[in-house]
């Protein structure tokens, strides 16, 4: 199925220079959006990567033109299941076509075309954003200098798919999901979506991080209530995560995007050999993983590195020590920041030399 003439939302920071050579595309993760470095319009919370993106930050908006596109299938302005299907005049719902990570990347490329940028200085993303980075490097190797997949994977494992399936089943089991037609029926599967978020949120944190944050501490009480209220702080925290999530995210979007991630297997698209996805690539890669990330492990990230090595691609790889779990890439990790900034600065220097020669 093809869709055409559809809306795409993006945010940009910094200024595009005269020869349009300083653009960086940041790819957001499953529940992220284009509001990288400014307060979120719905929640008022600070941008999801303000720690990394901004003036003088590792991804320096004083120097680079940073673009972030709300992904295809998302729910912050880009076309997705909650937008209106022009043929019916009602929200797409489950009539929206199933999408892939490659579709998201093609959609981003349209925005980059629109901005008149031939070659991005870098494409950077964590988690699902990293999958887009890998797909970018594979689909458009001549349109980027550097690729930085962070805490990512070249395929979704059975465990990854299993966790997503729990989330989807939670949404679909909510009677207010209405077989996907909730928007037309004036309902919202808030409970199902909240449970999906709660389950997913656990996978973003490490055991140590949860223990440090909450331990077995009780929520506003001295003893157990011997019931099913949120006795423990960790329960209360998860419930809060679930409830606030539904205010800013569409349940069907969650189904479509998690599905796109499950279908992702870059090697399968290239004859079962991941290396084939990067053959002859001139892109400089920097793969980054975190020790405490059990969702997208160092081992999985290392497989990407091995594939890149086997085609003699230019690759750097660092495993950052952190016990914060998968979410480490969104948090204050000085070593991570140092590697990211150092890599970008170094690559910029090398590019200046290379382009000067041309």
């Amino acid at each position, binding site marked *: 199925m093809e869709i055409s003439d559809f809306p795409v939302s993006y945010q940009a920071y910094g200024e595009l220079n005269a020869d349009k050579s300083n653009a960086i595309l940041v790819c957001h993760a499953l529940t992220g959006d284009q509001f990288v470095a400014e307060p979120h319009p719905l929640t008022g919370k600070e941008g999801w990567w303000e720690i990394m993106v901004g003036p003088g930050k590792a991804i320096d908006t004083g120097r680079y033109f940073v673009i972030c596109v709300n992904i295809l299938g998302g729910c912050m302005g880009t076309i997705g299941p909650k937008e209106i299907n022009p043929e019916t005049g009602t929200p797409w719902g489950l009539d929206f076509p199933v999408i892939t990570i490659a579709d998201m990347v093609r959609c981003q490329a349209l925005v980059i075309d629109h901005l008149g940028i031939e070659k991005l200085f870098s494409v950077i993303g964590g988690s699902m954003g990293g999958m887009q980075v890998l797909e970018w490097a594979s689909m458009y190797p001549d349109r980027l200098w550097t690729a930085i997949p962070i805490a990512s994977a070249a395929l979704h494992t059975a465990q990854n798919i299993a966790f997503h399936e729990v989330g989807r089943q939670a949404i679909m089991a909510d009677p207010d999901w209405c077989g996907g037609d909730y928007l037309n029926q004036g309902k919202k599967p808030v409970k199902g979506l909240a449970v999906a978020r709660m389950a997913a949120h656990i996978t973003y944190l490490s055991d140590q991080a949860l223990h440090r944050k909450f331990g077995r501490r009780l929520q506003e009480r001295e003893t157990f209530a011997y019931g099913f209220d949120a006795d423990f702080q960790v329960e209360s925290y998860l419930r809060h995560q679930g409830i606030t999530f539904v205010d800013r995210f569409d349940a069907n979007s969650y189904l479509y995007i998690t599905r796109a991630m499950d279908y992702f297997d870059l090697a399968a698209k290239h004859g079962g050999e991941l290396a084939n996805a990067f053959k002859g690539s001139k892109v400089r890669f920097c793969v980054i993983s975190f020790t405490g990330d059990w969702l997208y492990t160092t081992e999985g990230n290392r497989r990407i590195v091995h594939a890149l090595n086997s085609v*003699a691609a*230019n690759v750097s*790889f660092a495993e950052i020590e952190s016990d914060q779990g998968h979410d480490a890439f969104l948090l204050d990790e000085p070593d991570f920041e140092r590697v990211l900034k150092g*890599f970008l600065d170094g690559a910029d220097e090398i590019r200046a030399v290379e382009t000067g020669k041309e």
Partner: protein
Amino acid sequence: MVPDRKAIRVDLQLISDMIEPHSRVLDVGCGDGTLLDYLVHFRHVDGRGIELSTEGVKTSISAGLSVIQGDADTDLKDYPDDVFDYVVLSQTLQAMVQPRVVLENMLRISKHAIVSFPNFAHWRARLSLGVLGMMPVSKTLPHEWYETPNIHLCTIRDFVALCRDLDIVIESQKILDSDGRIRSVSSTLFSANLFGEQAVFLLRKKNG
């Protein structure tokens, strides 16, 4: 940051002198990237590194070098044949689990290999072991036996024998004595093995 580029160690300088400008180089066990940085900036090589320590990797990448976190025992096998002109293994051979396999892999993926290592047959080591009856501890072998990462120490004579076994041609060899002076090339194997505290070998495949 990478230390002052002019101040690289004598053995690193020796290695650098063996490398043709503008070649493709992989530095295995590149540490904080000192040699790699020097090679990239002064010999204009296309340089890559492998390093085990997180600190070394962070420092190297932050300095703009292409370095992956990994180790020679497991990560060399992924590279295709003949992608490099030189693979450097500086003061690391003796810490490898399978030094022989590592050496074979180095010459599979590269035209040349440059290997430097501490010589366990240096007279001081012999004195320590032969007369004092204790494991040697020196500038090039700084660890006590119970905490050394060096699990496969060898002598210059051992290394030459291994090269012969593997059909590896020794293109040149440099010996450093305990004062860090380069000993004359005319040294016999006997005296090199006795007076060389470290050795640097430039190798290639027999028909390469």
